[in-house]
């Protein structure tokens, strides 16, 4: 049991990282608490499985899903969020309302039945090591999350675009004064966040299935990850994701009556004693 719980925890951690990395970047740069992020996750899953039903290979469907979600993200940012001009309350209400709309539309299009996503060919079985059986797909999810984490880290820390994003996070008005098109960066980051969330949604399909309410189940987990790890910290998102992955799975099995206490208590403690999160910085 412990072994399966550990594997499930690590897998959920990988998925949560894909979800929360974008959420953290968007909040860090744009100060937008994007409550549509869970919906992007669920929508990605539904879109991906629809593409697979059209006969596309799982991985091509995953890439197309990410691109479609990026386009949806840019549209939301440019047409809906930008006119609000940074008003946090309006952003919260708008993204919350949008998440309800996406939930209803998804229910209408994909019905209320859980949609099972087929495991990609070649990853259905298990691998044996030291007499232990490792489900291949879950290992692949963790591997992909780690590869994306490294890719994101390289992009943020080692490229001019990443330096511009960090400059925008540090001091957005000054970044504009030195000629950085911060509004274009907002679109790039929002698109990236939405793409990652959508991609994660499809990746979650073979493991969690896609069903109505998945959005509102995943969003609080992403919020806890970001609060625990610290906003705008990829390392914080990575570490926070795996902590929450373990707390969620072990908490539900070992203390089912206290599962949410175990999940939220660390967040409360962090907020009280280290409000910037484990790896965040006070601004």
């Amino acid at each position, binding site marked *: 049991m412990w072994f399966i719980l550990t594997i499930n925890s690590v897998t959920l951690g990988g998925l949560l990282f894909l979800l929360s990395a974008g959420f953290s970047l968007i909040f860090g740069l744009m100060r937008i608490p994007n409550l549509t992020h869970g919906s992007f996750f669920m929508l990605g899953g539904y879109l991906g499985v629809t593409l697979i039903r059209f006969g596309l290979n799982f991985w091509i469907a995953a890439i197309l899903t990410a691109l479609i979600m990026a386009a949806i993200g840019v549209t939301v940012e440019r047409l809906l969020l930008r006119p609000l001009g940074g008003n946090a309350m309006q952003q919260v209400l708008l993204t919350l309302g949008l998440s309800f709309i996406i939930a209803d539309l998804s229910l209408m299009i994909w019905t209320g039945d859980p949609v099972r996503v087929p495991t990609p060919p070649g990853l259905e079985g298990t691998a044996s090591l030291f007499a232990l059986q490792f489900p291949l797909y879950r290992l692949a999810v963790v591997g992909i999350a780690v590869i994306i984490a490294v890719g994101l880290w390289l992009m943020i820390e080692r490229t001019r675009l990443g330096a511009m994003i960090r400059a925008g996070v540090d001091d957005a008005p000054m970044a*504009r*004064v030195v*000629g950085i098109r911060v509004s274009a960066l907002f679109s790039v980051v929002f698109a990236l966040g939405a793409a990652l969330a959508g991609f994660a949604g499809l990746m979650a399909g073979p493991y969690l299935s896609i069903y109505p309410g998945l959005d509102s189940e995943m969003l609080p987990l992403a919020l806890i990850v970001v609060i625990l790890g610290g906003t705008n910290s990829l390392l914080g998102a990575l570490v926070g994701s795996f902590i929450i992955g373990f707390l969620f799975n072990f908490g539900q099995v070992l203390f089912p009556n206290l599962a949410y206490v175990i999940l939220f208590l660390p967040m409360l403690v962090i907020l009280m004693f280290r409000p910037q999160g484990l790896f965040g910085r006070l601004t």
Partner: protein
Amino acid sequence: MPADALRFSGVDVYYGESHALHGVSFSVGEGRVLGLLGRNGAGKTTCMNTTVGLLQPRRGDIALFGESISRLGPEAISRKGIGLVPQGRRVFKRLTVRENLVVASRRLPGRQAPKWTLDTVLDEFPRLRERTSHYAGNLSGGEQQMLAIGRALISNPRVLLMDEPSEGLAPQIVAGVFATIAKLKSQGLSIVLVEQNPKLVIDIADDIVVLNSGSVVIAETTRSIHEKNIDVSRYLGVVSAEDAVS
């Protein structure tokens, strides 16, 4: 008569309903240094922030080499050729020295070779070359000021705005900063220098504008200030008149 590099024409700026600049007009000649003086709250930094597009004038116009920039955003104004060394330096603390410079560098239109590149900026400030991989937040105040100047220069501005570059620095560092300003002036760069210390400004500026409560109260050449023995200090309240013009 040299062309106006930067011209304020009857500029009114408000913070909400608070009227911060009252019909401010002055101009900076090409290749000249204009010293902008005034007490705290006189409107100096408001002038700088309005020039770079962080504030929008409610009335009046700001023109760069004859082209209006008062309705443009900060990114566009930067690309038109205005560089700012802001008050408090405001380097990007979580970026390295090199990254601070790289994010502000850009290609010039056409095939024009930029005067300021990463290498030429680091040549100008050898201290920064030793610290290219250090985070800007870990630099000393003087090093941060060099970085703020370098970051403004690497965009190859046609007009450089410097908002209190001596603030919070040791006298030796201030001397170095003003030596750099003198060098930039000798290279023909148009500069607006905001300072509270009139002695520093009058030594280097060609023209002086004094603001008081958001209005221009003196706009003269430095020579006129000397010749007419104009008492600049009564609008500043920090240095005696003799010190200010000596």
